[in-house]
Every structure is written in C-alpha cells, then in structure tokens.
C-alpha cells in the first residue's frame, strides 16, 4: 500500500520510490483537468448506477417468487437452472455475448437484420447490464431465499387466518424477514459503484464502443501497464479508491438514518 506514494512522484523504476522526485498533486491535476476525465467518470458512474437500479431488485423479486412455490422439488430444479450462469466465466459469458450479437450471429439471423451491436457505443451499457442480470440475479437471490425461509411461521399463519392478500403478506411477513439483508446488500453495492469490474468491461470492449465502455478501471490499466505511465495511472486509481470510500461511508450513514440507526 506504501506504493500509493508513486502517485505523488515522478516515478522512475530505476530510482525506486525513495529516489524519485516528488511532484505533489501534479498527476491528479493532469487527470482532473483533462477532457477525458468527465467522460470516464461518467461512464463509470452510469454503468454502475444503472446496473444497481436494474440489477438490485431482480434477485429480491426472484426470491419472493421462489418462496411462493409450494413444491420443493420444482423449486430446487428452478434454482439449479437459475444458479447455473454464475458458474460460467466472465470470458465465456462475454464470448457468448459477442457470438450471439455478431453480424452473422443468432440474434441477427432471428430478426433477419445485420446490426453489429458490439460496435455501438449506445448498446454497450444495455449489453453489460442485461448480461449481468442474466448471469448474477439467480445466484444473488440465494441470500434472500435463505432469509425468507427464516420468516416467522406464526406471523405467516396469522396473516393467512386474517385473510391478508399477497401484498399484505409481503408487507407483514416476508419483508421484515429480508429487510436487514436488503439493507446490507444495498450498502455494499452502492458503496462499490466506483469499483465496477475491470474484467467484464474490458472483455466487452471494442475499438468502436470505447465512447461508453472506457471506464476508470480500464483506463488505469491501459495508462499504467500498456503505456508505462506509472505515476499518472496510480494517481487515477487512488482518486477512484478515495471516491469509493467516501461513497461507502456516505451511503452507510444515509441508510443508517433511514433504518433506525442500523447500518453496517
């Protein structure tokens, strides 16, 4: 972690951290004042915020539905299918997405069209988020289904005797059972919006969709390891981490206020 110091230096690999010249915030200024800054920050934020908005409710919805299935046999089989995509690797997932959406791929064959989705900047976020839900929603629902199975049976019986409809049952029985889990998951995910994964964004990136697919993580990689601009890359990475920590603390505070003082 001491390597963070590189961000404040004109780092020279031959001189090492102790021998390199100090330059203060020069690299931070260079990044913040560059025209690309707003684009990359915007791309990062949009990708993760939209991802959170679309992706967060899905597992909860799945859990509610699974919880209503009476037959455990059918439920287990559905869960087996829902969890499956989680065990496919990022590379294979992105490979599948690329094949399916290519000009000669099945999606274009089906519609008789010739659209190259992977080269469209405006399609990148949809592709990224939809494939993320496809892969992750089922797996993420485990925590909620497990919490739901701990719901109070007495409350459930009482609600049924009172003739509560589904919405009333959810409000009185099921929501209280998963509320804490939802809060924890939300804080963790909202606090991580700056650390959107490198692996998937990079694997879905093409030269032509760079306008939306270049996020801070991929930029740090290219600047640092491909161009060898060590100090600049470290400064950008550090900027990202600091924002992330601030967000996490802020979200935790806000949620704690809304949730009677209970945060992480």
């Amino acid at each position, binding site marked *: 972690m001491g390597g963070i110091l590189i961000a404040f230096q004109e780092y020279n690999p031959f001189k090492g951290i102790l021998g390199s010249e100090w330059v203060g915030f020069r690299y931070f200024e260079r990044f913040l004042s560059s025209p690309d800054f707003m684009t990359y920050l915007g791309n990062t934020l949009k990708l993760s915020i939209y991802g959170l908005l679309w992706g967060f409710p899905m597992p909860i919805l799945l859990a509610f539905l699974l919880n209503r299935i009476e037959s455990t046999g059918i439920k287990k089989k559905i869960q*087996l299918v829902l969890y499956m995509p989680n065990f496919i690797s990022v590379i294979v997932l992105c*490979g599948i997405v*690329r094949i399916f959406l290519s000009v000669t791929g099945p999606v274009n064959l089906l519609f008789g069209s010739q659209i190259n989705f992977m080269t469209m900047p405006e399609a990148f976020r949809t592709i990224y988020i939809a494939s993320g839900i496809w892969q992750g929603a089922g797996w993420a629902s485990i925590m909620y289904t497990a919490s739901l199975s701990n719901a109070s049976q007495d409350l459930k019986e009482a609600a049924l005797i009172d003739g509560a409809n589904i919405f009333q049952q959810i409000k009185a029985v099921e929501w209280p059972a998963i509320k804490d889990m939802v809060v924890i998951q939300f804080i963790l995910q909202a606090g991580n919006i700056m650390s959107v994964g490198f692996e998937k964004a990079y694997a879905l990136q093409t030269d032509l969709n760079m306008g939306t697919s270049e996020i801070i993580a991929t930029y740090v990689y290219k600047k640092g390891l491909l161009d060898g601009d060590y100090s600049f890359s470290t400064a950008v990475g550090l900027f990202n981490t600091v924002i992330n920590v601030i967000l996490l603390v802020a979200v935790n505070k806000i949620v704690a206020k809304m949730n009677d003082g209970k945060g992480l």
Partner: protein
Amino acid sequence: MKKKSKFARYSTQDKALLLTGYILLGLFVIAIIIPMIYIIVASFMDPVTLQNKGITFDFDKWTVTAYQRVMSNSQIWIGFKNAVVYSIVFTVVSVFLTLLAAYPMSRADFKGKGFFNTIFVITMFFGGGLIPTYLLISNMHLLDSMWAIILPGAFSVWNMIIARTYYQGIPGELREAADVDGANEMVYFFKILIPVCTPVIAVLALWQFVAMWNSYFDAMIYLNDSAKQPLQLVLRSILIQNQPESGMISDMQSTAERAQLAELLKYATIIISSLPLLVMYPFFQKYFDSGIMAGSVKG
C-alpha cells in the same frame, strides 16, 4: 391434492398476480436455457450451415469435428492443466489462511482483536491500486510465477468474517467439554472446530475455486509465458480476440472457410471449458443456503 387447495385459497386478484409472477420466473428460466441449448446444438453443426441458417435439428448431419479440432490443440490442455493446478493450490492456501485467521478473531478473550479488525477492514476497501501492486510483485521476482496470481488474493477479509461468524454460532459448551477432556487449542481447532464447520468450509472452498478458475486479469498481467497461462487466457484469445490457436484452422484453404470454422470452434470451446464447473456445482448445492447465511447475517 394439498397443493391445489393452497393455491385455491388465494383470491382471484392474488391468483392473477401470482400467475404473472410465475410467468416472469418462467421467462427468466427460459432465457437461461435457450442460449445454452443453442450453443450445445451449434457446436455439432456444419460450419457453412451454421453461418447461413443458424442451427438445425438434422441429427444425421451433426459432426464432432469441432470437438476433435479443439481437443487436439495442446494450448487448451495446457490451459486446463494450469487452471486446475492454480485453482486447487489457491483454494487450499486461501481456505487454510482464512480459517486460521478467523479463529482468534472469533474469540472474545483475544486482546488485539479491535486493532486487527481495523486493519482487516481497511484492506477491504482500500488498496495500493494496480501499479503499486504490480511493482511489488515484480520486485519480489514473482512475475511469470504461479504465486503472483495466488498470493495477492489468497486472504479474503470477507471470507474471514464469514468463517468468524460461523465459529461464533457454535455453542460454547463444545469448547468447555474439550477443556474438561484436556484438549489444547490446537487439538480443539483441528479435531473439533474444523469438522463441525464443514458447510462453511465447503462454500468458501467452492467460492475460491470458482473465483480462481474464472478470473483472467491477474494472469493477463503477471503471466506472459504461454506455458503458464491458465485456461481463461487461452479462451480469451479464441473468444474475445478472435485468434484461434494456430493449427486449429490452418488447414482450411480460403479465408471465408477459416472464419466459418473459427466461429464453429468457439461453440465447442465454450462447452468444453464450461462443463467441469457446471457438472461440479450441483454437488455443492446443499451447502449453499447454510454456508452463505452463516456469515452474511451479521455482515
């Protein structure tokens, strides 16, 4: 009969709502299954038909050429072998470290608990970043060594918290009974505590194995030697960079034929590379609920 009576208890409105829900769930399941079936069928197709018409169900025209070509490529096997070695070593090292670190952290009488907790939590959200980590690995002369991708992620604070919470859920009487029988800490930990923690250990092991098996970033930056690359990097060049391993398609005459064959090979590659985990995971399913709930409740 019992099932029917339960569904009948719902009001008309609720039935409609429930039905809509089930249809959505059904669509989600179908959306997962269809692409998988498509890939399986496509991997047996003839490359020209596949490109012009997509998949067909003329079983008599199916071929296993794609599989033969992929399996006869040595780079795929090298990748497989490396991935198995890395994943197993990583899982063993990681789970062992996690279980050991979690034990003192689970004990109320451990003096430095608060201090270590703070340090652990800081590393969860704050790290050196890409370049400092890279320089560290490079200065330790770990580039092109398997430890470069194993050591940095071996200790996961999150997993440690899960193991710690699981330990804390184990009744204190067990410890007292062990004390009465004269068991020291070592005996208690290895002979008594670890065996009762099987569900959480199974889940942690599965997580770490899957995480290492499926990742490519660390290998991409630290391992340049092609003899050391794990499966995901080999897949990356075939699936993402569109560069089939040499020898897979080089016997084809025209560029068009090569492109069609390359497309077909992708399907077979996806199946061959994903099968091991997809076959393995149902055996772990029984541990999912108990193991995952163990740690996440208290965060």
